[in-house]
């Protein structure tokens, strides 16, 4: 065959260049985070201390875990509003399993996480099979979970103090001697695993495909319904995990805690560059998004900004961060 003129010359070197550029972009997105970090470090001497940075990371854990799970759902062009109250329900179930039924931790904790998977499974079923728009399906789940958490717990916190080992899941220090809470390590591990799944597995690939064009994906012979259910159920596991992390941190399952977390988690995902219209997104972005939010909250509190002003500043900084990120991306795309 002739006419090789159309085949691009040196595809490899060009490929490499674009890879480096992509890396650089992510690095720069990270840059926004770093700017804020440096600012606070200079602005307040209390900010850049080991214990404060640790506690900032610690406060990222719950939102971060929820956000990572939701990233999958949002990349499929879905949404999950049930993560906040779903987390309360899972925490209550963890309490029921572990405190009331005395199931040992090595079984009870996975059970609680799986319970999150069941919540996701139901969401997935409603979305994929009953064809309920994700917003409504998960809104309904949000309401139901909220109610059930109260019903099951009789509107009272369930305390884990009969099982002292439970708290160690979040607050213990795996690395002996260093006061670095386990929850942060768990978040890091989970982020890495999620990133691998999103980028290196069939599940991840189909997550992107479905979000890009569900119809084209279906016509390519992929069972979109089945995969949607799997993805929602998989994301649900993160609800369960978050519930364990938060209830271990607090030493109790708080049945009314959690509403509003969905918005924060979704915000982290979106700030991290994932599109609500599906097809685009990354775990690294989500983690950065979650860090930006908790960094800002922490920094503003550390700087003793009056609370009524904190939200004003938070809003403005989020806007500025995303705007500069936009400009950067447009520049990079030139």
């Amino acid at each position: 065959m002739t006419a090789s003129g159309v085949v691009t010359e040196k595809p490899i070197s060009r490929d490499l260049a674009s890879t480096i550029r992509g890396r650089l972009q992510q690095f720069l997105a990270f840059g926004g985070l770093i700017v804020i970090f440096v600012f606070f470090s200079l602005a307040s001497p209390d900010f850049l201390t080991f214990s404060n940075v640790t506690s900032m990371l610690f406060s990222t854990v719950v939102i971060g875990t929820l956000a990572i799970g939701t990233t999958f759902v949002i990349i499929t062009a879905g949404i999950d509003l049930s993560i906040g109250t779903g987390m309360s329900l899972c925490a209550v179930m963890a309490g029921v399993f572990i405190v009331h039924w005395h199931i040992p931790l090595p079984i009870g904790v996975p059970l609680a996480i799986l319970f999150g998977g069941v919540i996701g499974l139901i969401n997935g079923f409603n979305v994929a099979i009953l064809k309920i728009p994700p917003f409504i399906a998960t809104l309904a789940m949000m309401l139901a979970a909220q109610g059930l958490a109260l019903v099951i717990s009789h509107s009272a916190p369930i305390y884990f103090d009969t099982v002292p080992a439970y708290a160690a899941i979040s607050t213990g220090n795996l690395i002996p001697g260093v006061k670095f809470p386990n929850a942060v390590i768990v978040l890091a591990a989970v982020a890495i695993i999620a990133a691998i799944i999103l980028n290196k597995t069939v599940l991840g690939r189909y997550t992107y495909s479905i979000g890009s064009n569900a119809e084209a994906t279906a016509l390519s012979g992929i069972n979109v319904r089945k995969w949607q259910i799997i993805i929602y159920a998989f994301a649900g596991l993160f609800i369960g995990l978050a519930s364990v992390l938060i209830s271990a941190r607090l030493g109790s399952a708080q049945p009314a805690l959690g509403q509003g977390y969905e918005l924060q988690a979704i915000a982290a995902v979106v700030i991290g560059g994932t599109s609500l219209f599906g097809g685009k997104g990354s775990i690294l972005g989500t983690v950065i998004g979650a860090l930006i939010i908790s960094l800002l909250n922490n920094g503003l509190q550390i700087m003793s900004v009056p609370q009524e002003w904190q939200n004003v500043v938070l809003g403005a900084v989020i806007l500025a961060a995303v705007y500069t990120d936009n400009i950067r991306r447009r520049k990079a795309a030139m």
Partner: protein
Amino acid sequence: GGSGSTGASGGKTPYIAIVSKGFSQQFWQAVKSGAESEAKKEGARITFEGPPTESDVEKQITMLTNALAKRPDAIGFAALDSRAAAPLMQQAKSANIPVIAFDSGVDSTVPVTTAATDNKAAAAEDAKHLSQLVGGKGVVGMVIHDQTSQTGTQRRDGFIDWMKTNAPGITLLPPQYSSSDLNKAADITKSIIAANQDLAGIYGSNEASAEGVAKGIQESGKKGVKAVGFDSGKAQIDAIKSGTLAGAITQNPIAIGQQVVVAAMKAIKGVQQPKFINTGYYWYDSTNINDPKIQAVLYQ
């Protein structure tokens, strides 16, 4: 926890970090203003923060953690869930930061003192007055501001317990919850009235709920329902003056705020003080509302 030494008293203005149960509600704003005015007097610097809702335990814990990171000279703390805060209490202790608990007790030996109201007893007082107002019989509804928080459950249970033991003629409806949303409280009240034409009395467990109860009664045009509330606030005081609300229990949030700062200053200076400071509550209605003693505890 490398939160260094306090090193405060050395000429620098002492810094007191106060973490409350809420922020934007009137009650907490009154506590805040009391604390601020006292701090001014004492020459201290304070910060005052609280989570958006009284169920947001995690947010409060984070706020307390951040407060500790600022190495304050003392901490004022109103725990949403005292057990969840226990490790942080230990951390404060090891950093030699004295803790003043307020509004409700902290399940820990760390706090130097606790300035609190007995919410259950206060709610019982409300129940007593309502029972008298309706003549010890009839249907009584409840609009409670929160389902799980300590103030919510104590004000609910205190009310219910008193009614159950002391007013056998009264039928209590299941409590409805307003999430401290005035608009929602008004809608709930109207629903309760619509569903119970024989409603004799109704109770609102905080400012928003009480004001919503007054609004709901007013909008429904229903006459003869006796209503009692909790806390104060301009609309609530007006409702009491106009008779829509029969009366209410108020605590003294301004004084609570002041006492937190006073106690903190004492603790910083190492002055001994009692383990418990009762901040008290007062019943007020149209008869005593202009009483200077009552006027002093009302906030608008």
